[in-house]
């Protein structure tokens, strides 16, 4: 079907209609006629994206404080290249350029928050290229992608540049002045497991506080659990996201990790440790909740969250990688259409749910 041609002319025509309706100059007293409803709440895509960016600001600013100018550069390059790639691509395929809806900027920011602060500029650009062009535009643009673009970017970088992505974590310090490369807490746990066959993680109160506030090595976005939580709660209060995915994701990580910890505390870390380390909070509140790639109904969201949590724990405890959140979310993204199909609610007033899917 020749949808694309019709769609392209559609957009041009609609802008004209809008201008004509706004001005209606010299066109005579003609009214605008459309189907109902004739009023709107007025929320646009960019309003939603802007709120998510605002929710990420506390954690972002804090990470700049912790890691210094390098962090600022990483963020700037990521956001800038993401927006640039989207604009160039859309122009090249003669589609309307939609960078104004801020979704590319948000993807760039999320990608940056998934990277270590010392990432070289070319690596960031490769990541945003994969995120924007491959994972989003090639699928048809916003609304049509199956996988979370920022996570695809991150995972591509993880697999293509494993050294830069896993060993070069810097310790935070005031404005990144005294950075020293070291491993993340999860990385240390993994090391301990491999060398000693047992972990020795007894967190002191200071260490817990450090982990919560963000005084630890890690990617830009995973460091401050409290600030991410504040951002997440802000988004829920503003009704941008619902509580279902973050709560089910984090709770299922806690429960599953807890079960294994009870079975063998020497091998498996405390569930609270798992909950506050790694990119769990960033993933649960900001990545797994991406609209396009997560289920649309509340029950579906809960299933999605539990699935993400389970896969995260399995990868962390038994997999080859210390961190499992990114892969877990991507795997669940693939299953989202299936979840949607099977969580169709009965229409109001129906006797029972239709068992057959469309």
């Amino acid at each position: 079907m020749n949808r694309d041609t019709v769609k392209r002319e559609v957009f041009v025509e609609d802008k004209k209609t809008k201008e004509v309706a706004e001005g209606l100059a010299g066109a005579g007293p003609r009214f605008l006629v459309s189907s109902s409803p004739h009023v709107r709440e007025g929320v646009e895509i960019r309003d939603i994206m802007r709120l998510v960016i605002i929710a990420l600001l506390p954690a972002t600013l804090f990470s700049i404080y912790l890691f210094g100018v390098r962090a600022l550069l990483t963020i700037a390059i990521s956001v800038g290249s993401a927006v640039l790639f989207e604009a160039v691509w859309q122009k090249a395929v003669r589609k309307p350029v939609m960078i104004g809806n801020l979704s590319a900027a948000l993807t760039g920011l999320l990608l940056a928050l998934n990277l270590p602060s010392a990432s070289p500029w070319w690596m960031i650009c490769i990541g945003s290229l994969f995120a924007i062009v491959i994972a989003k535009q090639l699928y048809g643009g916003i609304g049509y992608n199956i996988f979370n673009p920022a996570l695809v970017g991150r995972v591509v970088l993880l697999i293509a540049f494993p050294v830069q992505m896993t060993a070069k974590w810097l310790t935070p310090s005031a404005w990144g002045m005294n950075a020293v490369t070291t491993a993340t807490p999860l990385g240390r746990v993994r090391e301990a497991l491999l060398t000693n066959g047992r972990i020795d993680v007894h967190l002191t109160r200071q260490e817990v506080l450090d982990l919560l506030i963000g005084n630890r090595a890690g990617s830009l976005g995973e460091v401050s659990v409290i600030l991410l939580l504040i951002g997440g709660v802000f988004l829920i209060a503003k009704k941008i996201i619902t509580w279902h995915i973050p709560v089910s994701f984090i709770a299922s990580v806690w429960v599953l990790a807890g079960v294994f910890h009870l079975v063998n505390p020497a091998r498996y870390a405390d569930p609270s440790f798992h909950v506050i380390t790694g990119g769990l909070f960033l993933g649960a509140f900001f990545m797994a909740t991406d609209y396009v790639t997560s289920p649309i109904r509340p029950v579906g969201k809960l299933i999605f969250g539990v699935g993400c949590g389970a896969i995260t724990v399995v990868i962390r405890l038994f997999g080859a990688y210390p961190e499992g959140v990114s892969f877990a979310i991507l795997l669940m993204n693939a299953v989202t259409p299936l979840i949607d199909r099977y969580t169709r609610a009965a229409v109001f007033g129906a006797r029972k749910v239709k068992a057959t899917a469309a």
Partner: protein
Amino acid sequence: MLTAVIALSALALFSSFLLAVVARAFAVPVNPKIEEVEGALPGANCGGCGLPGCSELARRIAEGKADVDACPVGGESVALKLAAIMGKAFEGGAVRKIALVLCNGNDQVAEKRFHYNGVRDCTSAAMLFGGDKACLYGCLGLGTCVGICPFQAMRMLPNGLPAVDPAKCTACGKCVAACPKKIIKLVPIDKRVHILCSSHDKGAKVRKICEVGCIACTKCVKEAPEGAITMHDNLAVVSYDFDIPDAVAACCPMNTIHVRALDGAIERLEEAASVSGGAL
């Protein structure tokens, strides 16, 4: 190593044997002609024959339930091939048909009653008061026909009317069915004189709302050979059984009648359309 080779070979032999037995035991007798016919059909599954797909048409032709020229897309060449396969006689020479939109009311000449905002689809737009055009028989220009064509043979001109590409149009009839105003017709490609209007409104009303609509003055009826053009409820209609000389087009006071070589390249047709502000 050796055991692995032997084991796998044995497995492969056993599976092949099993498959052969099953293929024979559960074989479904198939008329070999169906496959042959299907091979000769274009395979577009466009539905132009009125059936759900080429396989279905192949089955019917092979069983003698459909004619060898039932496929409008395949046209004469395919019909001849099928006739050979089926051992039937087939007289070629049928003139190819092409879709034609019988409306010339582009954005400059046809009045609009309101600014339409909504789904970019003619059927949807027609649900609101019959569409934004003052002429309720006119083309709404939102491209439902363009979108439904399986051969991408139609495109929307900037003036708000669709154009048909003779090189790609197979007269499958999908656009004819999709148009909510029912103003697309399949016409023989060798005919040149066309009345590009479908309005049954009285002449006085047409004059007010469209600069190129048919006002039923009947001049063309008198100019053309007897019976070639007839009046149907305030609209002059061409009968394509006749040969109408090009000069008849000049007699129309509203510029509704056009001379178009439908078998030309679409670029020439588009150029001609832009010059006269017309549809194709």
